[in-house]
C-alpha cells in the first residue's frame, strides 16, 4: 500500500508546523556585538587594592542591600566570603601577608555569558555596552543560570516566597546616565579602573610588560570563558586569586552549539525517514496478506 496523499499532507503539515518553531541561532545572539569597540569594562589591579571595602559599601548603598556586614577587618578577612543575595560584591584577603593581596569579587559580565545563553526567557540578557542585566518580570526561577555560571555568581532568594535571582548589575542604570559603576567611583587607590574594555587591555599590557614589572603576565578575563568585562592583573600566582582557573578560554554558549544545531536536522530528517519506514511496513503487511504473486512483485520493487 502506498503512502496516500492524505497521509502525506498530514505528516508534511506536522513537519512544517515544527519547522516554524522560533528560529534559533546556535551561538549567542550577542556574538556580533562582542567585537563592538564601545564595550565597557573594569580593570582590577590587585597590587593597588588595600582592602578598604569602600566598594562594598558603595554597592550596598546603590543597590539598597542590607549586607554585607561591616565588622572589623580582622573578622572579615579571616575567611573567604562569597557574594550573596544581600551583597553583590565582596573583597577577600587572598594572601596572609607580604604581599597582602585583596581580590574583589562580583559578576564578571562575560562577553558571551553562560547565564544568558542558559536562560530560556531572556531574563538574564547581555546588553551591548557590557552589563549582563536581569529582567525580573521574565524570570521563572528555574535556576539554570546558577548551574551554568562558572563563577557561581547568580544567587537565589531561597528565603522568600516570591524569589528572584540576584547579582551585580554593573550599575547598568548608572552607566546609562553616563556615570561609572558605584564601586569604581569610590575606589581611593585606583585599583578599579572603569572604561573602554579595549583601552583597559592596553593599560593592563603596559603595566604587565613595563621594565621591571612585578606583574604576572596574564590578564585574567581577557580570554577566560571567551572574555569578561571585569579583568584582573596581579603580582601573585593567578591560582591564588580565588577565581576559577579551570574555566577554559571558550564561550560557554559553544558547549551546547552542536546540540542546538541538531534541531533542524531532527525536524527535517525524521518525518521522511519515519514515513518511509511506515510505508515499507504497510507494504510488507499487504504483501503478507495477499500471497506469493504480490510477494514476487515486492521483491522487484
Amino acid at each position, binding site marked *: 500500500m502506498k503512502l496516500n496523499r492524505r497521509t502525506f499532507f*498530514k505528516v508534511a503539515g506536522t513537519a512544517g508546523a*515544527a519547522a516554524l518553531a522560533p528560529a534559533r541561532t546556535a551561538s549567542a545572539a550577542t556574538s556580533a556585538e562582542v567585537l563592538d569597540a564601545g564595550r565597557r569594562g573594569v580593570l582590577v589591579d590587585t597590587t593597588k587594592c588595600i582592602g578598604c571595602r569602600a566598594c562594598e559599601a558603595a554597592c550596598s548603598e546603590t543597590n539598597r542591600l542590607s549586607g554585607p556586614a561591616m565588622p572589623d577587618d580582622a573578622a572579615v578577612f579571616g575567611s573567604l566570603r562569597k557574594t550573596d543575595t544581600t551583597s553583590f560584591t565582596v573583597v577577600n584577603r587572598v594572601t596572609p601577608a607580604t604581599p597582602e593581596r585583596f581580590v574583589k569579587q562580583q559578576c564578571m559580565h562575560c562577553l558571551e555569558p553562560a547565564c544568558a545563553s542558559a536562560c*530560556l526567557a531572556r*531574563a538574564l540578557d547581555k546588553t551591548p555596552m557590557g552589563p549582563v542585566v536581569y529582567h525580573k518580570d*521574565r524570570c521563572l526561577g*528555574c535556576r539554570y543560570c*546558577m548551574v551554568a555560571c562558572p563563577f557561581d555568581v547568580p544567587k537565589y532568594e531561597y528565603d522568600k516566597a516570591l524569589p*528572584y535571582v540576584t547579582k551585580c548589575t554593573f550599575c547598568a542604570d548608572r552607566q546609562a546616565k553616563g556615570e561609572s559603576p558605584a564601586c569604581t567611583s569610590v575606589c581611593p587607590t585606583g585599583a578599579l579602573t572603569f572604561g573602554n574594555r579595549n583601552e583597559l587591555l592596553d593599560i593592563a599590557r603596559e603595566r604587565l610588560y613595563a621594565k621591571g614589572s612585578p606583574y604576572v603576565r596574564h590578564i585574567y578575563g581577557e580570554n577566560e570563558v571567551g572574555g569578561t568585562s571585569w579583568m584582573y592583573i596581579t603580582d601573585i600566582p593567578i591560582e591564588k586569586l580565588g577565581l576559577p582557573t579551570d574555566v577554559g578560554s571558550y564561550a560557554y554558549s559553544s558547549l551546547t552549539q552542536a*546540540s542546538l544545531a541538531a534541531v533542524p536536522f531532527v525536524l527535517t530528517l525524521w518525518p521522511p525517514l519515519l514515513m518511509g*519506514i511506515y510505508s515499507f511496513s504497510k507494504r510488507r503487511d499487504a504483501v503478507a496478506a495477499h500471497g506469493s504473486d504480490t510477494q514476487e512483485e515486492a521483491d522487484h520493487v
Partner: protein
Amino acid sequence: MSSPTTAPTVPDATARNWASDKLFLGMSFWEYAKSLATPGNFLAGLIMAIGLPLLAYRFIFGLGAATNLSQTNPWGIWIGFDLLSGVALAAGGYTLATSVYIFGLEKYHAVVRPAVLTGFLGYLFAVLGLAADLGRPWNLPVPIVYSFGGPSVMFEIAWCVVLYLTVLFMEFLPPIFEWLGWPKARLWAVRMTIGLTVFGVMLSTLHQSSLGALFLMAPTKLHPLWYSPFIPAYFFISSIAAGLSMVIVESALSHRAFQHRADHHTDVDGIALGLARGASIVLFAYFFVKLQGIADGGRWALLSTPYGYWFLVEMLGFILLPSMLFAYGARHSHVRLVRWTAAWTVLGIVVNRLNVSVIAMNWNVPDRYIPSFMEVWISITLVTLGVSTFRWIVNRMPVLKAHPEYPESSSH
C-alpha cells in the same frame, strides 16, 4: 486512590445513570464511596494528606524553608528525580507508538494505550514537580508567549515538553472518546495517529537528548566521568531502554492489579520477552557509547577513585548486567527474570539521572546536598498522584482491553 474529581449533584435520572456509568463504575455514589475504602486507597490518602499540605507550605514559605537547596546546589531531587527520571521513564509512549504504528510491530499493539497513558501521566506529573521547583511557576508561559531564549537548551526543552504533553493527550483521545461514547470524534482522533506518532518521535528525540545537553553548560561542576560531549546521546539512548523497561514493569503490574479490566487474550509474557530483546540491545549500545565517552575523554585513571567505583557500579551493575540478563531471559523465555531485570533497569535510570544532576554534580566542593524530608515526601506524593490517576483512568476507559464496539483498537 480512585476518587472522583467532583461529587456531582444529580438532578435527574439520566444524569444519575451517566455519572454512575462513567464515574462510579456502575454503582451509586454512596456505593462507590464505600468501595473506595481499601488498604491501598488508605495508604495513598495518607501520603497525600501529608504531602499536599507540605506542597502548600513550600509555596507559602518558599524553597528555602521546604528544601535543602543552596546557592551551591540549586538543583535537587525535584529536578533529578521528578523531572529527569520522570521524563525518561515516560519514554514508553513514543517508543511503543513508533514500534506499532510506524514499524508495524502488531504484536505490541495491546500495550500501546497503557504506554501512552503512562507517558502522558509521567510528563504531567514531571511538569507538576517542576512547578514545585520553579521559584515563579506562574511565569511558565513567558518563554512560550513573548520572551524567547533562543540559544538556550532549556528553551528547546520547554517548547518540546509543552508540545509533547499536548501530543500525548491527543494520542490518548481515542480511548477517552470511546469511554464517552462519541464515535465521530473518535474516528477523527484515530485518523491523527500516524501524524501524532511522527511528531511525538521528533519532539522526544529533541527533548530527551536536550535534558542531557543541559549539563553541557557545567563542565567545571559535573564530575568528568559523567560529563561528556556525548551526554545528549546518553540521555536519548537510555530513554529508549527506560521506556521499554517501564512498559514491561507496568504491563505486568496492571494485568495483575486490574484483572477485571484487562484483556486475558493479551500475550503479556510474549510482549515482555520481545521488549526485553529490544531493551537488551539498546542497553548494550548505551554501555558502549558510555565507554567510548571515557576513552574519548581519557578518563580511565579516574575509575580507581571513589567516584570511579560508583561510576563502575552504574556502568556494570545498572547497564551491562541488565543488558545480559534481558538477553538471557529473552532467549530462555524466563519471564520472571525479564520483569525483575526491567524493574532493575528502571532503578538504574533513576540512579543515572540522579548521578548527573545531584550526586556527581558539585563533587569538588564541600557543600553537599542531601534532600530534605519535605522534598522526598512531596516527590512520593506526586508519584502517588500519578499512580492514582492511572488507576482512575484504567478503571473507566478502554486502556488494557479494547472497547467492545471497537475491537480493532488493540488488535491491529
